[in-house]
């Protein structure tokens, strides 16, 4: 994995958005330009207690003077966003990594449909700004329950101009649109990028089942929920030939860590891609939400994924 600089950034500005969301503008005390980000990228935010959380950058990637993140307070979450809401005070500082992108749009192609569910608007808003600047056709569709809790819609309209953002709100029936109708007829070369809660993305996937696989781009920020999965033991073979047994109740990452060969890890829920490694042979059971179907042919997320029998890793 490419190492990334971890910087102590200033919280320059904090603003409230609908939906219990804080918008934070992060700047560097010394550097006028931050490491460049591409649209769809995220940064790791270190919470100061060993925990790390990933936040998509929603600002214009051409503006390297600041990173802009949106943090939704998840009352039922693991506590990271609650802590971050306490830490995001103007004048405070925060350890933040240089950006990384697992959700990059192909640079060429036809018109782009950006489908956001709630706070999933963040990486798509960055994409929209790049598409607008590059003169490529696109439309941003934001799906949310209520206008009063939907973040960044006005910001998106302000940044993108009229006619490029549609809000589809459950509590405003005349704004609603059926996904199958919206996605019925892809233009030649059309691309669909989608980010939002798991249920929303599953619905988009279903409605876009007739689209070519390579035209679809999904970014999850929640781990795969699959309560019926029963983990089985399997075996890892390292590049050195060393064999490691992974019992049913432990992750491959855990076992690799104990053996002293683990890649760096972060979320440990199959979302962030920090611990990805290559595999050469074997039948993995992919349980991450970060690898594309194509990438799954050669890459493996040891924090959540498992295998049938023996898996040969490039470690």
């Amino acid at each position, binding site marked *: 994995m*490419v*190492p*990334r*600089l*971890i*910087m*102590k950034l200033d919280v320059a500005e904090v603003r409230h958005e609908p939906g219990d969301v804080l918008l934070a503008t992060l700047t560097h005390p*010394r550097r006028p330009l931050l*490491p*460049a980000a591409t649209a769809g990228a995220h940064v790791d935010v270190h919470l100061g207690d060993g925990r790390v959380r990933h936040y998509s950058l929603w600002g214009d990637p051409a503006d390297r003077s600041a990173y802009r993140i949106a943090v939704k307070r998840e009352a039922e979450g693991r506590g990271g966003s609650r802590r971050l809401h306490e830490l995001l005070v103007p004048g405070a500082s925060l*350890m933040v*990594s*240089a950006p990384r992108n697992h959700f990059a749009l192909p640079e060429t192609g036809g018109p782009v449909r950006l489908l956001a569910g709630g706070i999933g608007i963040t990486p798509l808003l960055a994409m929209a700004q790049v598409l607008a600047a590059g003169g490529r056709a696109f439309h941003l569709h934001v799906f949310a329950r209520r206008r009063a809790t939907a973040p960044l819609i006005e910001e998106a309209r302000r940044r993108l101009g009229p006619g490029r953002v549609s809000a589809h709100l459950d509590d405003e029936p005349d704004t609603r649109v059926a996904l199958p109708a919206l996605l019925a007829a892809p233009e030649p070369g059309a691309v669909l990028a989608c980010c939002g809660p798991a249920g929303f993305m599953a619905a988009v996937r279903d409605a876009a089942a007739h689209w070519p696989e390579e035209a679809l781009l999904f970014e999850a920020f929640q781990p795969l929920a699959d309560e019926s999965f029963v983990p089985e033991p399997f075996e890892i073979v390292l590049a050195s030939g060393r064999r490691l047994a992974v019992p049913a109740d432990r992750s491959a990452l855990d076992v690799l860590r104990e053996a002293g060969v683990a890649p760096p890890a972060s979320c440990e829920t199959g979302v962030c891609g920090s611990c990805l490694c290559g595999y050469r042979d074997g039948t993995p059971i992919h349980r991450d939400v970060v690898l594309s179907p194509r990438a799954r042919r050669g890459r493996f997320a040891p924090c959540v994924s498992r295998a049938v029998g023996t898996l040969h890793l490039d470690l």
Partner: protein
Amino acid sequence: MTWAGTLLHIHVAPSASVEMEELAEARLIPGRGIEGDRYLLGTGTYSQKPDIREVTLIEMEVLEALAQGEPKIPGLKAVVDPADHRRNLTTRGVPLGHLVGRRFRVGETVLRGGRMNFPCPYLEELLGVPGLYEGLLNRSGLNCAIEAGGVIRRGDPILPLAD
């Protein structure tokens, strides 16, 4: 050898990949490292590969040469800020390449040259400066041991010691 140099900058980082922080003064602990730095704390990228790495130095003259650029070998022209090269001490007027195995004074402390620093692709990737690895070959600074500790300050003289 007669030369007289100056300590221009002192930088430390608490752990691997974390940006360096500039200090006006720092305490050197003999046989261990700089207070607050990753190689004293054991949290550096290379902490698990034992070597003499208590303090690392690089010449300001090298950074100036990189900024000026050398069109033929290998075409790299890059501004590398003293906060970015990840060596602890930036010096001027000190012939680091001649100090392997030799003792010299930095302010009130005494260092001993261990081995020439070797540039790492890690730094090139971390800073996102393509070609920096080659650009630093043979002039990536000096890794030192601390023989006599104490406090060093920006602007301290750096002087040779008889062996």
